Every structure is written in structure tokens, then in C-alpha cells.
């Protein structure tokens, strides 16, 4: 039986704080996030970055898993078209994302909860704007709460 989502992070206390899981590619977006740091740009603390070598490494399963396990949104950051450190990884990522977006829609998951952004190593400021913008949009949408079937099961099977 699937495990139940349990939320106990301090970020969770008080009013709703969106939780965004991000997959940043090692060469562009992760560097951009580092640049945002060295430039001391301030942005919303709601994002948790998982480093991958290339946006092409991001398996759609990762995205669903994050959403299923309590993320309110997922952000993928990769190099701009033509800039991929591995030449084409970001295009592969884009191919999957195009279809995944249609699927998320069918699942009734609002499109603002999933985003693919091209952010180059020079665009520290874009990290800030994208994260802030996404956090605000997701905040407006409220919690995703995909625990439904399990909770319902628990109650209906009782």
C-alpha cells in the first residue's frame, strides 16, 4: 500500500508555504543559482534544489514522485537551447516536458505548478525572478494535496 504523505517541516507551520522541488542542471542553472548567491540576491526560501548533471537526466517519474510526495510545484532548470553542456540534453528534457504537461492537465494539476525554465550560468537574477514568481503563483493555488486516494481509502475501508 502506498505510503501516506506526512508533513512536519518547520516551513509548514503557520500559513500555507508552497514547497517547490527543483531539478537544476549542473552547468547552467545550478551555476546561476550559485551566482544568485554570490550576488546576494534574495528570493523565496520555498525551493529545494536537487542537482543533476543535465536537465536531460530528469526522469518524468521524478516529477510525479515529487508531486505525489507532497511538493506543491516542480521546477526544472536547464541550459538555453543551443547551450547545453551535453549538446542536446535540454532538448530531450523539453520533449518529455511537452507531453508531461498535457498529462498533468488531465490529472487536474494546474499548469503553474510545473515549470521548465532555461537559465544560463549568467542569469542569477532570472533564478530569483523565476523562483519568486513560481512561489507566488503556487501560493495563490494553495496546497496540491495529492494524498487524496490514500486518505479516502483509509476512511472508506474503515
Amino acid at each position, binding site marked *: 500500500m502506498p505510503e501516506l504523505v506526512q508533513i512536519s517541516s518547520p516551513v509548514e507551520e503557520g500559513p500555507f508555504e508552497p514547497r517547490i522541488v527543483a531539478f537544476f542542471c549542473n552547468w547552467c542553472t545550478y551555476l546561476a543559482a550559485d551566482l544568485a548567491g554570490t550576488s546576494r540576491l534574495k528570493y523565496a526560501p520555498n525551493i529545494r534544489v536537487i542537482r543533476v548533471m543535465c536537465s536531460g537526466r530528469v526522469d518524468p517519474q521524478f*516529477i510525479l514522485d515529487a508531486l505525489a510526495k507532497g511538493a506543491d510545484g516542480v521546477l526544472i532548470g536547464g541550459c538555453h537551447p543551443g547551450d547545453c553542456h551535453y549538446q542536446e540534453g535540454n532538448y*530531450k528534457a523539453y520533449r518529455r516536458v511537452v507531453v508531461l504537461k498535457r498529462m498533468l492537465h488531465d*490529472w487536474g494539476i494546474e499548469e503553474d505548478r510545473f515549470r521548465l525554465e532555461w537559465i544560463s550560468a549568467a542569469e542569477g537574477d532570472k533564478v530569483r525572478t523565476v523562483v519568486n514568481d513560481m512561489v507566488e503563483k503556487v501560493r495563490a493555488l494553495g496546497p496540491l494535496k495529492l494524498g487524496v486516494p490514500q486518505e479516502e481509502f483509509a476512511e472508506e475501508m474503515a
Partner: protein
Amino acid sequence: MSDKPKVAFYWCASCGGCEEAVVDLAEKILDVVGLIDIVLWPVAMDFKRKDIEAMADGSITASFINGAIRTTEQAEMAHLLRRKSQFVLAFGACAQLGGIPGLANFWNREEIFQTVYQETPTTNNPANTRPEQVSHDNGHTLTLPGFYNTVFTLAEVIDVDYYVPGCPPTPKMPADTVTTLLSGKLPPKGTVLAPDQALCEECPRKDSKPDKLLLKEYKRPHQVLIEEDKCLLAQGIICLGPATRAGCEARCIGGNMACTGCFGPTSRVLDYGAKAMSAIASIADSNDEREIEKILAKIPDPMGTFYRYSLPASLIPRKKTEVKANA
């Protein structure tokens, strides 16, 4: 009654195809019956629930349960059989993954009733009568099974020992399964009783697949005259063989039909649909964003295509209730 091992067959939310798989044993069934006693098989034999309830716990060697869990009755029977059996096998795609009935998870109970009891053109139901679990009619009381909001896999309801995949499983599979169980050489609990490789492994058209296959266009079967011995993907047809567990002897391919994934994923894959989609979408032949979108738009109904048999077993088993518009 003899002391032959006792076996029960039961069906939940299913089409009956899995029963056919057993019946398809044909004359072989006699050999099977020679080895075992069938204590429950609603589709073919007249045993009742109370017969099972009367049996001692664990006295049934194996229960083959097919179909997904849609109603309270199915859940009750599942629990009952679990109690009475040493082994419970999820038999067929519906029990293992939710199967076709699982696609109902795109709607909730209310929406389904709305359609079935009101909106279909042939429905005439001015009183808006709905099935009720308990209803009274001059002194008589009628009870019906409860209808869950969500379709569940068998494993979500009870503890399952083994899985027999397929929609339906091939006729040799029940027989093989029984033999395995009786042989005493048991695979680890939770095993899917089929090879842990993708279908391409046993696909007769395997060699016809080019090394670097990329698609400019995804085609649907009615758009092409499908060649008999050429890899279907190479012909532009979405074939899920690469993502689907082997063991079906590539029967659909044999019938010149693309694999639609009824055997589910290999043990290494967490979410069948997502993985299958990743593989199929990844071979879109373009590095231009607009063109990529155009090519992939040709994939009809991604959910229906990639989750045809496995929505309830996926990471996100049902449609999110109440959707907010985008801010």
C-alpha cells in the same frame, strides 16, 4: 473432500477475460483439476461466500483474484480470501495495476453516477433514482455494495503475495503459476511471475529496429498499412514494448498490433506511464522547440496511451479533486 491443495478463483472489477484465460486451459484444465481442488469459481462453479467463510483460516492454498477494487463487496471478498488463503495472487492487469476499470479514476463517484444514471442519451430517470447501499420497500430491506470514489489495485486493499500480469494473462500462465506454487520453489514475495525484461527481448521483430530510431511523426494504426515483420515503432506506431514486461510471447505483435502495455513495468520502474512516455517522447526527431511541440501533438490522449492499464498503480492514482483555475 480430498486433501488436494485447495484453490479459489474470484473476480472483482474486471471484464471476465481473466476467467477466459483459465478456461482457455481447455483440456489442460483436467490435469490442473487433477492436482487441485477448486473451492471457489463464481464464473463456473456454484460455491457461495458462506462456503468460504465456513473454511478454516489459511486452509486455501492459493486464491487467484482478478479485477480491480471498485466496490465494498469486492473489498470484503478480498479480505475474506486473504484470511482463508496461504497465498493470494493478483491475477491479471486489473488486480495488479487497476487495469481498464482504473481509467475511471479520471472521474469521481458523483460524476460517474451523473453520467450513468442521468446523462446518457438512453437514460430515462426523471425521479433521479440512484443506487443506495440500503433501501426499504414495504417492509423489505435491500442492500447493495458501496461504490468507492476511487478504483484501487488489489495490493492497496490487501496484502498480495504474487502478481500474474496481463490483460488477460496467457493461458499457460495460470497453469505455470499453480505448478510453481506446488513445486515449493517459491520466488520472493511480491514477485511478478513474468520475466523482468522488456517485451523487445522476445519480440520477433526486434532485429528490424534501426539502431538510432527518431520519429518525425507519430502515426495511429489506421493511418498506415502496417508491415508484417517490421518493428512497429520504426513504422511510426506507438508500441510500448520497450517499456512493458515480457512474458506474453508478443502475441499482439504477432497479430500485427502494437503493444499497449498490459504486462506493466519491469521491477526497476516506479511509474509505468511516466517511463513509457519518457521513452516514446524522447525519440521525437527535432531540436526546435516549436517543431518538437508539433511532432508530439500527434500523440493522442497521452494518459489513455501510457496509463491504459496502470493509472491506479501510478504515483498519482487519480485525478486531483477540485481544480483551481490558474492564477
